[in-house]
């Protein structure tokens, strides 16, 4: 069951909310919390009931380890922590990487090892990481107690179970413990608005452009060379599709949780407005960046500092590359995901290096260039870098991704629909002088794709995001800077700075229009891009 499905919107969600509010009112918050846990497991089972025992087993195991650690002094928790992490990562590794590992060995060694195809349990990457954070924090003494029912709902809560945001136990379990789960008009209004905006982003915007982008990747997978215009459409189009898809999902998750009075952390903050790749990762999948920074990057960097290795390579470059390598591996079991991670590692390292040049007194062109403000140039550079890396994320293989990037560089030539040759022969002849060829490609889908890209770019780059618009109503645990204080480049800032969500009739009508748009687009139900993690 997907958030963007009739079954979820018209059956599951109303039933869950009604049950929760009725139980909270007549039987108390504990009953409502148990109801939400049962509903979350039902939601998970609707995908594949066979994996519910795995989820519950993982929760039971981590709970036991956590309680066992709490029963010991801090200094003697190391072995249990190691056992917990080893089992968690072992489970994740088995389900997510066995096939990849065997295929890679077979490819490299020419062997014929065989394992049956292992179906990846939905959300395993998310719930594994969330539970590891609890074990690590108990081990370090940061967490001293927790309640089982809060822990179970923290892991299984359906708004974030499948695709995040990656929540932290310290921000969720206290909320579950304190929540009354009663019906509240403010929570419903804020939650409904967030859900409507997310649904519109996913069903109308992301799926709208996705229908045009996916065929290009299919052609690449079939071995067809991807020419310039299509390669750029594949890269930029998928960046936009991914952004609106994942940001939409995250906002739907925020809205769903808020309907029962729970706040989730912000996961996207208009990342395409970023003028550096460092800023991009600070605003894109924020909860993953937060997790990787706290539990991978910082420990590695601190270890280097402790060993008194203060050089850039050991304190910044190496931790960055290792972190992004693991990020790539986490995103998927395939070499193309590693390329995605390593590319971002390289981009981030270069970005850190360029920042360090700002303090230099050299008068070389590069140093002077980086010292000056060139927001538009760096915004475009960041967009292109992110798009190139995401091309590997979408591609079926490194080869397919490389082909598309080669197409972006013009190495596969430029092909235009032959209708241009038919209608404008003189213009076509001029273009032909520059090596442009005309092929039997339909013109209108190409034009529609570029029109979609332009419209979505404007939406991603100009107006405030929904969390900024709803800033005064605390839509999330962590919030972005208000739009008026957001210093990233955006035209028409003064116009949009006046916009703020309020429970007015105009906003109600606008939210209804977005809801209607999302519902009218449900007929082309597609999975979320971050589904299989």
């Amino acid at each position: 069951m997907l958030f963007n499905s009739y079954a979820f919107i018209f059956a599951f969600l109303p039933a869950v909310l009604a049950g929760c509010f009725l139980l909270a009112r007549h039987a108390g918050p504990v009953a409502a919390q148990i109801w939400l846990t049962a509903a979350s497991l039902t939601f998970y089972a609707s995908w594949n009931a066979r994996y519910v025992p795995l989820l519950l087993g993982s929760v039971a195991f981590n709970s036991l380890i956590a309680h066992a650690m709490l029963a010991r002094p801090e200094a003697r928790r190391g072995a249990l922590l190691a056992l917990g992490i080893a089992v968690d990562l072992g489970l994740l590794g088995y389900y997510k990487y066995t096939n990849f590992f065997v295929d890679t060995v077979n490819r490299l060694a020419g062997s014929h090892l065989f394992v049956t195809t292992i179906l990846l349990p939905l959300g395993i990457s998310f719930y594994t990481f969330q539970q590891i954070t609890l074990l690590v924090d108990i081990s370090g003494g940061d967490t001293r107690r927790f309640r089982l029912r809060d822990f179970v709902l923290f892991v299984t809560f359906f708004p974030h179970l499948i695709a995040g945001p990656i929540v932290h136990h310290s921000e969720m379990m206290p909320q579950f413990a304190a929540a009354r789960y009663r019906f509240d008009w403010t929570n419903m209004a804020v939650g409904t608005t967030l859900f409507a905006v997310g649904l519109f982003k996913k069903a109308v915007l992301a799926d709208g452009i996705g229908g045009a982008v996916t065929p290009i990747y299919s052609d690449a997978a079939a071995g067809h060379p991807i020419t310039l215009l299509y390669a750029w459409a594949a890269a930029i189009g998928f960046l936009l599709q991914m952004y609106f898809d994942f940001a939409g999902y995250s906002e739907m998750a925020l809205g769903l949780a808020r309907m029962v009075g729970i706040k989730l952390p912000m996961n996207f903050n208009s990342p395409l407005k970023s003028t550096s790749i460092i800023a991009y990762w600070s605003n894109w999948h924020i909860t993953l960046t937060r997790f990787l920074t706290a539990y991978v990057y910082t420990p590695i960097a601190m270890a280097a500092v402790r060993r008194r290795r203060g050089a850039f390579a050991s304190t910044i470059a190496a931790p960055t590359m290792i972190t992004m390598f693991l990020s790539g591996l986490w995103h998927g079991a395939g070499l193309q995901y590693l390329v995605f991670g390593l590319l971002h590692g390289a981009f981030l390292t270069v970005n850190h290096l360029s920042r360090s040049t700002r303090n230099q007194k050299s008068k070389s062109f590069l140093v002077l260039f980086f010292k000056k403000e060139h927001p538009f140039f760096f915004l475009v550079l960041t967009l292109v870098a992110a798009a190139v890396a995401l091309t590997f994320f979408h591609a079926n293989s490194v080869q397919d991704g490389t082909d598309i990037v080669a197409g972006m560089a013009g190495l596969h030539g430029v092909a235009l629909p032959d209708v241009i040759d038919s209608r404008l022969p003189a213009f076509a002849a001029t273009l032909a002088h520059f090596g442009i060829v005309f092929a039997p490609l339909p013109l209108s889908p190409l034009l529609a794709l570029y029109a979609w890209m332009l419209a979505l770019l404007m939406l991603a780059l100009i107006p405030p995001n929904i969390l900024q618009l709803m800033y005064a109503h605390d839509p999330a645990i962590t919030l972005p800077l208000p739009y008026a204080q957001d210093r990233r480049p955006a035209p028409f800032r003064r116009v949009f700075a006046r916009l703020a969500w309020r429970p007015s009739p105009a906003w109600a009508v606008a939210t209804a229009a977005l809801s209607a748009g999302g519902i009218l687009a449900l007929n082309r139900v597609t999975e979320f891009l971050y589904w299989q993690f």
Partner: protein
Amino acid sequence: MARYMAIWAVTLTVMLGAVATLCAIVDPYNVIGTPCIPGLTAQKPAAVHWARLSKAYLIQRQQPMTLILGSSSADVGFNPESPAWPASAKPVFNLAIDGAGPDVFLRYLQHALAATTPRHIVVAVNFIESLTLPPRRVTEAAAQPFDFESRMRVLATGAPNPAYARAHVADLVFATLSFTALSDSVTTLLHQHDPSTAYETASGWNDGGELRRWARADGFFRLVIDKDREKIAQYKTWRAQKSLQIDPVLRLVRLARAHGADVTLVIPPNYVDTMESLRQLGLDPDYDAWKSAIVTGGTAVGATVWDFSGYSPYTTEPLPASTDRTHRLRWIWEPVHFQSALGDVMIARITGAPGDFGAILTPANLASQIARYHAGQTNWIGQHPADIARISALVR
């Protein structure tokens, strides 16, 4: 906040209700079966592009005496309302599907026979549809593949399709509550009297409005040349591996015969450009072999085979000059699609009218008919050196 939620709920209900009502009245894909309002919703432009969906439901609300099967050439060329159909053949329904091959014709016939009892089946079989071609680039296709299988009442085995009921519900929702249906409903209302818009009639005919628009915009010369280029590229691709798909046609005939219907296989007229392209590509023997297979296989399972493919005044209309956008061809749109005027002539012939256009092929007269075809070819070649050079340039 309560007021905000109330306004949201009422507005959302009104918006969705309005969309559903409009789409249900217009019924742009014939999925619902709302009675047509002449001048308002009778002509369905969107149904042309959703023919696999539309015709799957439309056929179930009809009881045709004659059923037409085929691809776009039959879809555009055979008008079920044509006066050429004798009373004994009426009512006629055009179940031809744009871009389909014999395997799809067969599935739609199975679907139709699960709900109707036609007595006459007319199947247009083209050489190009029998060629097994590699899949095209996805980005070359103007539309994405449509899952028609779940809309078939029966499976290929003949057993009831368990996915049908669910697909029907999904289609009803799609046809009433979707952006696509809303947009197509508005298009339907706005284009009732637009001669340049293709529409599907209640009897399943595509009136060819799109071809008419292209012919008016670019002229017939451009229309013919563009289609020549496309088909020559396909023939060249096929030449490398040469694989024909005849079996679905024969299975289709057997199925229709088993349901008590007579079957007429129609080899449609080829415009001279197609015949000359085949010759210059060295595919004449393959074309003859295909025709022989249709005739020997088709007659063996009880079909009558009509051949309209030779050199005749209908297929050798002179092409206007490349700069002439006003001259209109009378019988064909371009090498693949013939106009319904020519379709009427063919309907008259296969339903018994006298004439010298087309002939019934049998194993007994096959060799002589093929020889006649090549005699016509030789004759035409001798008289049209400029056309041969024009086509030669395209083939090169």
